[in-house]
Each structure stands twice: as structure tokens, then as C-alpha cells.
């Protein structure tokens, strides 16, 4: 493609406070005559006018500029903050106006445009992926080869974005000129993997407890010839886990970002593991990428029809039927059918069931208690990281027993019981209570090594990530895991049973006679290594999804 250097003009826009360009207090007095070799036109906006008037003034000046020079690209530099807001109120989607908020940005943009970059590429730089990093380092596949591309079509469609075995296409309808230009410029990764080609798994987009990343690592480590990435759509504040590709939700509204996701993450995938019905690219709607459920189902259908194999992983909450849970667990948080907690949970579960009924795909779940709610789901074990298995100090080596609990959504863990009971035991001098809040994932393995006992959930019945990490660290886990669920494990689960009625007695017993429980603490790393170090998880995915003989 021949790159043409556009005609450029640079405007330095400011609020002209007093009409005196020599006055120190007037931003206009600080504007240099030239920036990056381009003469600067100072554009003063009338002080004391409304933003609407200033935007109108700017729009008029721009219209005059383009009438005189239709092909000219205007780089507008907001010299002061109010001007930035004025520029933001203009139509910045046409591709012939780049608005920036600093002199550095103006200089950089001018140099880039003069070197042949487009306004579109400055506004919408391509999505960064590990594949691009490998190419930079000269470690990717050979650079000359066919690449995945996006085709922009004129035809209006129900789905603005389509993914097929051959590539990605988007409908131009509804795209701004700038978005269209950005998408048309995109090139994707080399076609080394994809449906019918090399084997590459994409897991997305929840990454709860970092497990999306962990399963991807397990596949890459243990299935020869397979690569795997995870992708996380970051929806809210909270602890941030490692991920191969992380997109904040505020970026997800952009069709360019979502087209990028399709091009760089979906297209190269031969297999896609969808977590918790989460959207991957929001294909159904051009602008509203937030809706889950209905749109997610149409997305999976499209992906499967594209020749890619799709499976679903349900972590827990999204499928835990409150009526069933209430019948199985005496301390169920869903004990009141009339409560909003019950009703909300039931609505969620019904939506999940409807989605699964529409599309027959392999179904996995991370914890064995979920088999009470899901037919035909297979256990995909949670994966503990290498750091979780680092050598730990001897268990209960002396002194007061250190007992940790990570209070989270109290409704689901029973933290309202545990926190109070452990605090009382600490006040009585029986234990040292270590509440764990907001701990970064990097620090959790080290923290676990500093305690003796971890009390996980005592009402829900799910043996989840923290319990697995506790076992890997050789610490003693205490949780409510029913006998029915324990029998589903391939070996005896080395976790002490407790619920709100017994937790005090259990902890006191451990504190009084830790040696009686030592064998369980020591069995933890063996258990975790056997079932939760990634090998079994990779094997499950391989057997039931990834390999040619797996379920389609």
C-alpha cells in the first residue's frame, strides 16, 4: 500500500483570556511559532463564552479550513484544559481532525503523520498481544506468510461482525469514517493456527481467580503442539489476576477494539472455551457490548458455525440453582424463597439453563459440587501455580495456631459466622486470627505460608481456588464440603469438615491437638500436585474437547 503524506496544519487552541497575546497570563503568549517543523496557527477562543459557543466557534473555523483545503488534516492542540473539553465536543470521527492535549502529543503526532501514519492508527493503535511481542523479538513464525484480515463490507447485517473459517468481516453500516479506516488498516497474526490449521485454544473472558490464565498455561505446558491464551474483559474494581490479554470494559464499547479482539484472538483460535457465558467480542451489537446472555448465545453459535470448536466452562455462581442448594445444604444462604437473593439467583440460573439448552457444547465446571446442578458437565480441576507449591515452613511448628479467613461476599462464604467465631477464639487466646482482605494474587502464596489453618467457605459447599492453594502450601484447610461431593474426588480430600455450627469446636480441636491433624496438612501438597498442578486439567480438556476424538 502506498502511504501518502497528508497536508497538515497545526492549530494551537486556547481560551484567549484578555486578547493580549503578550500577557504572561494569556496561554496564547506561550505558544511557540513552530512545532515539529510546522508553523503553528494560534486559535483563540473567546473567553467568557459557553462551551457550546466555543465548540461552535471551532466548528466554524474548521469548516472554513476544509472549504479552502478539503484534503487537509488538522492537528488541534488544546493549550489549556477548557479547550480540551471544547475540542472533545467536536465531531472527531471524520478522520481529518486529530485533537491532542499537549505539545508533546502535537509534536509526536505531526512526526508520525509526516512519516506516513494515519490519523486512524494514532487514535486506534492495534491491540497488543503476546504474538506481536514475539514478532518484535524475531521469535514468532516467519514474517512472510498469509495473515488473518478484516474485510469491511457495505451490506447491512444483523451481526455487524462475522467470523468465519476464512477470516473476519464487519459491516460498515454505523461505523464512523475513523473507525472504518482503523479497521481497514488492520492486519492480524499469521495464519499459523486456526480452524483446520494449527491448534490454538482461547479461553475467555472471565478469568475468575486467574484460572483462565492458569488453564491456558496448563494446555501450553502439557499438550504438545497446542498453544493457548486467555483473554479477560475486566468489568469492575477488585483484585487483578494475570492474563494474556486484558481489555477494560470502558474500551469494549469501541467497535474497533472488538474487531481487533476478533482478528487477533478469535480468528487464530481452533478451540474456544467460553467462561460463564461471557462475551468475547459482542458480535451482536455494534455499540452495546455490555449485554450478556442472549448476545453471548448468538456469539457461540457464530463461532461454532465458523468451524471453531466451542465449549463452555461454568465456574459456579452462574449455575448454582438456589432451590437445589437449599435442599442440599442446611446452612444455605438461599434458605428464604421470598428473598431477593433467592429470586435473583434463580433468574440467573434459569437464563444459564436456557442458554445451554440452545447450543449443545461440551460443558465443564471447576468445582465438583457443581455436578449437583449441571447435567453432563465434566470436572476441570482448578490449577495451582508453581508459586503455590513453593516449600513452606513446617506446619504448626509451635506457638499459637495462626488461622486465616478471607472474608468475601459474606452471603456465599458464611463469613458473617466465621469472622465472628474466629475473632472470639482469638480474644479467648485460643488462636491468632489473620483476616485476609484485598491481598494481591502475587502475595497470597507467601501469606498462606505464614499461617497454619485457612478457613474457607462454610456454607456453599464448593472447594474452590483458595482451598486448593491452601493444600498446595501444606497448610490445613477447613471448609464445608459434603460427603457426597467428597466422594466425587479421585482420592480423599485432605480438608477438615466444618459448618457454622461446628467451626468453633473444629478450630479449638486443631489448636488443642495439632498433631492429630498434621497428616492432613502434609497430604495437601500431594493431593494438590496430583490433581491441581495443571496436568489433569490439560488431560481433561484434551480428552473431552481439544483432541480430534473429543466432543464437538
Amino acid at each position, binding site marked *: 500500500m502506498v502511504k501518502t503524506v497528508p497536508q497538515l496544519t497545526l492549530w494551537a487552541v486556547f481560551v484567549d483570556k484578555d486578547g493580549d497575546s503578550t500577557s504572561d497570563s494569556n496561554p496564547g503568549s506561550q505558544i511557540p511559532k513552530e512545532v515539529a517543523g510546522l508553523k503553528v496557527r494560534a486559535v483563540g477562543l473567546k473567553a467568557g463564552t459557553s462551551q457550546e459557543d466555543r465548540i461552535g466557534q471551532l466548528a466554524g473555523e474548521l469548516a472554513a479550513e476544509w472549504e479552502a483545503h478539503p484534503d487537509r488534516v488538522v492537528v488541534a492542540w488544546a493549550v489549556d*484544559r477548557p479547550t480540551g*473539553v471544547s475540542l472533545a465536543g467536536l465531531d472527531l470521527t471524520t478522520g481529518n481532525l486529530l485533537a491532542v492535549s499537549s505539545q508533546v502529543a502535537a509534536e509526536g503526532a505531526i512526526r508520525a503523520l509526516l512519516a506516513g501514519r494515519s490519523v486512524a492508527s494514532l487514535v486506534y493503535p492495534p491491540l*497488543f498481544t503476546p504474538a506481536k*511481542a514475539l514478532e518484535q523479538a*524475531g521469535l514468532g513464525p516467519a514474517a512472510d506468510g498469509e495473515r488473518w484480515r478484516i474485510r469491511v463490507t457495505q451490506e447491512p447485517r444483523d451481526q455487524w461482525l462475522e467470523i468465519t473459517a476464512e477470516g473476519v468481516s464487519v459491516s460498515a453500516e454505523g461505523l464512523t469514517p475513523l473507525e472504518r479506516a482503523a479497521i481497514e488498516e488492520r492486519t492480524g497474526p499469521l495464519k499459523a493456527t486456526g480452524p483446520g490449521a494449527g491448534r490454538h485454544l482461547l479461553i475467555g473472558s472471565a478469568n475468575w481467580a486467574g484460572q483462565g490464565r492458569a488453564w491456558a498455561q496448563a494446555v501450553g505446558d502439557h499438550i504438545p503442539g497446542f498453544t493457548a491464551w486467555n483473554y479477560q474483559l475486566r468489568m469492575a474494581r477488585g483484585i487483578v489476576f494475570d492474563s494474556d490479554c486484558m481489555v477494560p470494559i470502558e474500551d469494549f464499547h469501541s467497535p474497533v477494539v472488538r474487531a481487533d479482539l476478533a482478528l487477533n484472538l478469535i480468528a487464530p483460535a481452533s478451540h474456544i472455551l467460553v467462561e460463564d457465558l461471557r462475551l468475547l467480542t459482542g458480535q451482536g451489537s455494534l455499540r452495546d457490548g455490555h449485554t450478556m446472555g442472549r448476545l453471548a448465545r448468538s456469539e457461540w453459535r457464530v463461532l461454532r458455525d465458523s468451524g471453531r470448536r466451542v465449549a463452555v466452562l461454568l465456574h459456579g455462581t452462574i449455575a448454582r440453582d438456589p432451590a437445589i442448594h437449599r435442599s442440599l445444604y442446611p446452612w444455605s444462604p438461599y434458605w428464604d424463597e421470598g428473598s431477593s437473593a433467592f429470586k435473583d439467583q434463580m433468574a440467573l440460573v434459569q437464563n444459564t439453563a436456557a442458554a445451554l439448552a440452545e447450543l449443545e457444547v461440551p460443558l465443564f465446571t471447576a468445582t465438583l459440587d457443581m455436578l449437583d446442578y449441571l447435567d453432563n458437565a465434566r470436572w476441570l480441576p482448578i490449577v495451582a501455580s508453581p508459586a503455590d507449591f513453593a516449600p513452606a515452613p513446617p506446619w504448626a511448628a509451635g506457638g499459637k495456631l495462626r488461622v486465616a479467613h478471607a472474608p468475601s461476599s459474606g452471603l456465599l462464604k458464611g463469613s458473617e459466622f466465621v469472622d465472628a467465631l474466629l475473632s472470639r477464639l482469638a480474644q479467648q487466646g485460643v488462636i491468632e486470627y489473620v483476616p485476609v482482605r484485598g491481598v494481591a494474587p502475587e502475595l497470597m502464596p507467601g501469606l498462606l505460608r505464614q499461617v497454619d489453618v485457612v478457613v474457607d467457605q462454610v456454607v456453599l459447599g464448593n472447594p474452590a481456588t483458595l482451598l486448593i492453594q491452601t493444600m498446595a502450601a501444606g497448610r490445613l484447610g477447613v471448609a464445608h464440603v459434603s460427603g457426597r461431593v467428597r466422594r466425587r474426588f479421585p482420592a480423599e480430600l485432605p480438608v477438615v469438615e466444618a459448618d457454622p455450627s461446628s467451626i468453633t469446636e473444629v478450630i479449638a480441636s486443631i489448636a488443642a491437638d495439632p498433631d492429630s491433624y498434621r497428616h492432613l496438612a502434609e497430604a495437601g501438597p500431594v493431593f494438590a500436585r496430583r490433581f491441581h498442578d495443571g496436568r489433569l486439567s490439560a488431560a481433561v480438556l484434551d480428552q473431552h474437547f481439544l483432541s480430534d476424538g473429543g466432543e464437538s
Partner: protein
Amino acid sequence: MTPASEPPGRGGLGPVESGAVPGKRILYVSWGFPPFSGSGMANPLAAVNALATRGHQVTVLSADSDAFDLVSGSDWSLTDRISQSVTVVRVDQPRAMLDTVINRWSEARRRNAGDYPQWMCELVHDIFPEPVANPWAWYPAWLPNARATARALHQARPFDLVIATILPAASAGVALALNAATGVPFVIYERDSWVFSPFTGEPYPDSGRSRPMLEMAFERAHQVWYINTPLADLHRREFAAWADRIREVRNGWDPESLPRPVEPRARAGQAGLVVRYVGTSSRQFPWEFVTSAWQLARAQSPLLRESVLEFVGPAPADRMPGDFDHVTLAGPRPREELWDVYSGTDILLFVKEGGGMATSGKIYEYAATGLPIVSSMVADHDARHVLAGRPLWFDAAGHTPEALAAALVAAAERAPGVEETPAAREHAERFRRDQVFSSAFAQLEESLGW
């Protein structure tokens, strides 16, 4: 070289320099790296070049070019100084609260009068703890991309060592993650402090988040390096269990910046001297203090009456307190013009805020010029370690405009100090950065059993 024309995979694995033995594979994590032209760029540049000179295969992980070109500032001529054998991988820095491209501002930002909404700032800060001195710094947003990149690179071709230089602390996050996943050893090189203010020595108000992370870094690191003795000693006290892992690896001056000796310009007793402050003067720079001292000095000394005080380097122009006679802001000059700047200078001015933990990288270069240096700094400022025993050093006896003026007058009366210039230059030889790094990396290699 411009952004559009930078070749991908610059340097590649390249040939090892003639005579050197094939070394180890080292990942050097430095958010800021050429073309980044901001403060602290020279140190990682010199470090990776020193490693390459020793025969190691160095891959640098840095932020992407647009982050420098469009936000923090860039100088593409600096990339010519990168050793040919070094591979630079540029990892996208999500723009977040520092996005200067208004076309890209979200609706939330437009509605917030152009400011990044606080809840979105907190989203960034949830990712990783950075010192509170940069409360809205964007660096944590870089970490997920950087971690994924380090992992992919290591998986393709394993590294033997990771060196992460901070700030930003996000660089350390990369080393920690790769070590946790693969066990590859790492060194943290703190050129600023993650937990303690180098100005006061006190913990940052927000250090409750960062201290546990630094403790973990100490526990897992092969070594932790500090840029000067006061910072090293502070951390030896605060993290005593790991004191044996702490090393001092000072900043220094680069021979490339001073390719030939700076010769004294003026004749003895000559009026109309050029007094220069070379470097970045932030909004915290004590403008009133310096300009007051200058006017006093000019009033006292016929030699200075017609002399000029010039600030060369980035400066926020609106902080100059009005117009002063014979004071000018010359703005930044490219690094390749530094020798010319020094050659046109008769007296260098070193005025630094901050306390005993700070050194200021600039003092090493000043010292190497051999020019008379006038200084004003607190009694325990670490720059005194650099200047102690140096000829042609005129230190203000007290932190008052009068004391600084007296030092300026004394320097003017001694300038150019031709007889003492060679000794002044020689005094700085020990701080040549390539020699500092050569020594540091030699001990590191030995400690690793290489």
C-alpha cells in the same frame, strides 16, 4: 529515525561482539527506554549496553513508542546509542488517565471536564501498587501486557536472568511474575524508592500496599540494588533479614555525553560569564530562592553584573516568577548537543531540593566536565558524596539566598580555574557509568556462578 520507520525486532539476536564469549540471556525490564527521553533514561541505556559488551544476549522490555511520542516525550536520536546486539520489545502502555489523544476520550472523561474519572484511576491502581508520589500514574496498566510478553518470550527462548529497574514499580511486577511462574532469578534495581520518599526518607502514605510487595521481592530476589548509599542503608535497616542481598550501584556519567574534554572558556577575571543550570527544573524547583540569590550576587560582583544565568532543559515556563534581568529559560537541548552546552558554560549551578536520600543523576556529569560548580543543598544530600574532595566546588554555606550568592561570587572570582580543571575532571573518573556497570555486572556474574 521516526516511529514509522523503526525496524521491527531491532538488533535481533545479532552477532556477539568480537572477542567476547557468548553469554547469558538477560531480560532487562525498563519501562522508560530510548526513544524515551525523560529523566532516568540514561541509566538503563548504559546498563544494557554494558551487558551487551560483556557478551550477554539482552532483550529489553520497554513501553511502546506512542507512549513516549504522544505522552511522555521522545528523542529518537537516542536509539542510535543502543547496542546493535540488544533486542528491544516495546509493550503497549494503555493510555488510561494520561491519554493525550482527545479523539479517544471516553464519554465518562468528556463528561468529567476532561479529567479521567476517579473510579477509572482506581481501576488502574488496583492492578499493582506504585508509590503514592504518582497517584494517578498510568504504569500499573502496563503490567498485564508486560507480564504476558515476558512469559511468551521466556517460553520461546528461556532467560537466565531478569533485571528490573524501577521506578515505575510495574517493572518489578514483571520480574516477580516470571520468577513465580518459572523460577528465573532476578535483580531489582531501585533507582528511586518504591516505599520511601527519597526527599524525606519517610514511607509514602500509601506504602501499606507496596511494602508487602517489596518484602516479597526481597525474599525472592537474587540481589536488590540501590542508586546510592543512603537508600541502600535505609533498606538494610528496614529489611534487615535480606540485608545481604543489597548492593549499591551508583549512577554515573556517560562518556558519550562528553566525547572530549570541556575546556574552560573564559579568561580569569573576565566579566560576562555564563552560569548555567543544566537539567530538568520541575514545578518544585526553588525559583524564588535561586533568582533572589542571583540578583544578590550580581549586585555584589562586577564579574557577575553582566553575566547571565541560563536554565537549559525542560522547565515549566509559567513558574518563573516574573522577568529577571539576565535570567533566561533556554528550553531543552538534544543530548548530542550537551557537550556544546557545557563548552559554552563558565560556571555550573547545582541546586537540588530533597534530603539525604537523593543524589540527582546530573551531578555526575557536572563533575566530569571539570567546570566550577556552585551548589546549594541540604547538609546530608548524597550529591556531597560525589563532590567531596573535588577542586572548583563552591558550596553555599547555608540554605539562604545570601549564602548561595556568596558561593556564586566566589566561583566567579576563581573562574575559569584552568590549573585545577584537569584534577576536577580526574576526580570524576571513578563515576564513569560504563565502569560502574562493568564492576557491578562482574560481581553479579560471579554471584550467579556464571
